[in-house]
């Protein structure tokens, strides 16, 4: 009975000021979710599953019956992190008069504030007998100062006495809602049922590609599979949604607030009292004792959503053969991947769907050194050209890569890497880190202390029983010049470039001379 009355009150309270009809759309008939990667997150860094910094475009189809005359349509069940200024409503026959996001939330503070000067009931419970007593009172202070009440002809406060006291309000004031609510105002010529499209941007989402690379026995090719990993921290689940992800970097502005907004702080109601006496008693040791007791361990973090196990899937036998993958299309200068089936983008969850499946990709290991004077830094790269001839030829979105190799019939992880967005025909390089089997060293010598020429010898060693491809990029300072070398050098990335094959269990050397033009 009481609950029903309260419901009535809530419904009645939702009525806006003017005599206009309120139509509530409880949820979408159909929803489409397009996720965008956080443009400021590097390829190597993982999705922040607590506070994802990407976002999503939600497009909802809703059916509502609008009455003739002025009406307000309230949209419930929208994403919690909605960016209200991005909301678009199409399909209203007579257009949108105005759009509103009302964040006047029902909270202890707003109840208190709206009751200023009104009659409320104060319930006092006798601590000895447990008997409750209801007293008529009038609120005389606003929330900023805290409670001063008038009881008949006298005045008092709330809860300063140390007795249990509570204010009982007689209804929910008009215009306070449980959640920030988006609404539009329209003036229809006639009553009709319409299908609306509501679209808006919302924060709290993110996605990335996850590549699984299984090297083949020849060491020159691999089976490449990629997942789309998406994460949502929104309070709303989007059930059976047409889902897309957009690859490429999108510009965002600083004044768009994609993060969750702190409406709660505006709802805080501090109750203050007159000063209570405070004493610095001789029982300080008690406090010390309390402090010396080790603090209890922090509660364990809430269990993170279970990520899908990648390694299990990287099984050679039937490598991802029957996983449906997303289809790609160009979206202006971006790439849009459409999920093969409808999925539920659940609240607070992570989900994975196949992105691409490319068996037999030519992906060759190359050892590359960046050399500056006597300092050589070597990395192992898995390199392939992103074209059809190499078994790839697809736009590859930024993401992480896990590389596996078969050892004794088992697929074992040999390296982890990441790539940025790679277009078709680009060179794709998975950087595997510093190798142990191939190393490069440079030693420089001068004939005289102030000789303008420095002779360097680069020695590359390989302890593997097979030959490896090796590349060196020799970087020079602006005032330096490559005077001569014992092998022909070309240019690459603004550096002198040498490539060779280091024989099995062997070494390769390059001698070159650098001239310093500052010296005469």
């Amino acid at each position, binding site marked *: 009975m009481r609950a029903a009355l309260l419901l009535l009150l809530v419904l009645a309270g939702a009525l806006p000021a003017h005599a206009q009809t309120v139509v509530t759309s409880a949820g979408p008939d159909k929803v489409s979710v397009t996720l965008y990667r956080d443009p400021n997150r590097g390829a190597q860094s993982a999705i922040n599953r607590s506070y994802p910094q990407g976002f999503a475009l939600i*497009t909802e189809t809703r059916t509502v019956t609008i009455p003739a005359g002025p009406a307000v349509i309230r949209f419930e069940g929208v994403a919690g992190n909605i960016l209200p200024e991005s909301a678009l409503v199409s399909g209203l026959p007579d257009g949108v008069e105005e759009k509103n996001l009302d964040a006047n939330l029902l909270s202890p503070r707003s109840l208190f504030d709206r009751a200023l000067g009104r009659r409320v009931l104060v319930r006092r419970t006798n601590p000895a007998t447990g008997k409750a007593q209801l007293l008529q009172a009038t609120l005389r202070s606003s929330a900023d100062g805290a409670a001063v009440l008038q009881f008949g002809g006298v005045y008092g406060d709330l809860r300063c006495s140390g007795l249990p006291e509570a204010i009982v309000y007689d209804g929910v004031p008009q215009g306070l809602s449980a959640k920030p609510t988006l609404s539009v105002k329209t003036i229809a010529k006639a009553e009709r049922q319409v299908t609306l499209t509501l679209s808006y941007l919302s924060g709290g989402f993110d996605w990335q590609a996850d590549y699984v690379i299984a090297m083949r026995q020849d060491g020159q090719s691999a089976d490449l599979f990629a997942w789309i990993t998406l994460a949502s921290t929104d309070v709303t689940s989007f059930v059976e949604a047409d889902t897309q992800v957009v690859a*490429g970097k999108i510009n965002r502005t600083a004044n768009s607030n994609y993060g969750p907004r702190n409406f709660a702080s505006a709802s805080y109601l501090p109750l203050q009292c007159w000063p209570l006496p405070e004493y610095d008693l001789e029982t300080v040791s008690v406090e010390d004792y309390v402090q010396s007791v080790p603090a209890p361990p922090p509660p364990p973090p809430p269990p993170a959503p279970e990520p899908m196990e990648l390694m299990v899937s990287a099984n050679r036998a039937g490598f991802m053969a029957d996983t449906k993958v997303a289809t790609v299309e160009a979206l202006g200068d971006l790439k849009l991947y459409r999920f093969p089936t409808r999925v539920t983008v659940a609240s607070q969850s992570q989900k994975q769907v196949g992105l691409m499946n490319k068996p037999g990709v030519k992906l060759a290991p190359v050892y590359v050194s960046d050399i500056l004077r006597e300092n050589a830094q070597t990395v192992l790269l898995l390199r392939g050209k992103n074209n059809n001839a190499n078994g790839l030829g697809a736009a590859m979105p930024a993401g992480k890569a896990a590389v596996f190799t078969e050892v004794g019939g088992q697929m074992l992880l040999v390296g982890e890497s990441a790539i940025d967005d790679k277009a078709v025909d680009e060179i794709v390089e998975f950087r595997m880190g510093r190798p142990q089997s191939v190393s490069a060293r440079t030693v420089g010598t001068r004939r005289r202390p102030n000789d303008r020429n420095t002779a360097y010898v680069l020695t590359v060693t390989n302890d593997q029983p097979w030959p490896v491809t090796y590349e060196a990029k020799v970087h020079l300072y602006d005032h330096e010049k490559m005077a001569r070398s014992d092998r022909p050098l070309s240019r690459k990335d603004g*550096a002198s470039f040498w490539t060779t094959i280091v024989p099995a269990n062997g070494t390769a050397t390059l001698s070159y001379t650098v001239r310093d033009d500052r010296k005469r």
Partner: protein
Amino acid sequence: MRALAVSVLLLVPGAALAQTAPQPTAQGDVSVTIYNNGQALVQDTRRLTLANGVNRQEFPDVSDRIRPETVRLSIDGASILEQNFDYDLLSPSALIQKAVGQTITLVRTNPATGAETRERAKVLATNGGVVLQIGSNIEVLRDDGLPVRVVYDSLPPNLRARPTLSISLDATGGGTRPATLSYLTTGLGWNADYVALFDEAKSMIDVQGWVTLRNDNNVAFTNADTVLVAGAPGQGGSGNAGMAPGTLPGTESSGRARLGDFYLYPVGHRITIAPNQQKQVSFLSVGGVPARKLYQYRNDWYGSSSDPVSAATVLSFSSSKDGGLGDALPAGTVRVYIRDAKGQPQFIGENRIDHTPMGSTLAIRTGEAFDVKIKPAVEKREKINSGEWERTEKFRISIDGGKPTTVERADEVTYWRTTMSYTVTNARPEPVTVDLVQAGLDRTYWHDTRVSSESITGEQRSLDERLWHVTVPANGSTVLTVAFDTRY
């Protein structure tokens, strides 16, 4: 107890009916002028009933973020004596402070029996605890932690529930007359939000413009005549975000009303701005405006990049009357959408624009192109002699007091020649043109940079920047090589 509950239930529905009516407001005919810097001018015409002589008039329902020093009241037949803004708020601690020297009632509750006993007490002080005189004894309020309720006989006059504006008036003759209260308040602001739907095949955009206004006050402005000013008085002009580089701001006048230097955007009808509300009202809707997509890239220094860098995707259109949006655009965010293969609009990026006069060319950078990339590289760096000589030293020498002779020294001018290559790749199925800019040309000490050779003829945009239009075939690449000669 049961009877009590029933009485509560009976109370509730009656009160509920009373509350469904719109909240009464003391505001009269309100007009609100909102500026861009979160500030607004409120003009509120109320009817005041005054008695002949001195009146003290309170003005409830003014904005809670009012700037009291800006309040002005215009009224006929009355002169203003003084204007007060009282913000000594009613609270339990303020009450007891004002009760110092006065007598209050204490109600003690026996925790064992619940029995209440009353006694009178005089408040002596409230410094870090309330010191009371009860009969001949002095004690501290709630020193024992037991429940004690403080009851006051009256409220002190100057404590208020909310900050309150009051004005004392000397009226000549009684009666009701209109009075206009005007004041500045913070917590009300606005900006524009644009939605641009780009049709790449037709090279056209449809643009909707919305004004977004926010009220962070706890006060509603009911049925307010609202005007938005595109500007922030006292904060200088705006920047030129969104303006296409190398273009001048437009010189056309929009048909909209102006306030001094600023344009006004009226909302069209009276609106109610609710507390803590964000409200959007449409002000612009234009379809079929020509627009083109550009690719831009800017290298800030003569540097190499081992990984290719994506070109920026830029949407360019005009705000001109002919072939443009045909309006002056207030500052805000432009969000660009494009239809996917199924015809559904998808978001492709956003950017900010400043106040833009009509007739301007805009260029909105929406994001980076997945398929169009540039790889800059320093190919060569060499010292060259220009064949020019410059006088570096000049002396007048006199030997043993003889006739002075002038000796000059000239050095050949040497340059450092940096040969840059820019490899532009295009994985799109159609040719593209990238506007490639090399910057940093005028940042050396000598201010003497020459472009000695370039594989595509460029244009010097400024002392610091040179621009090349690099055309790249479909699924192909183009290499631009440029030699820069600098003195350092």
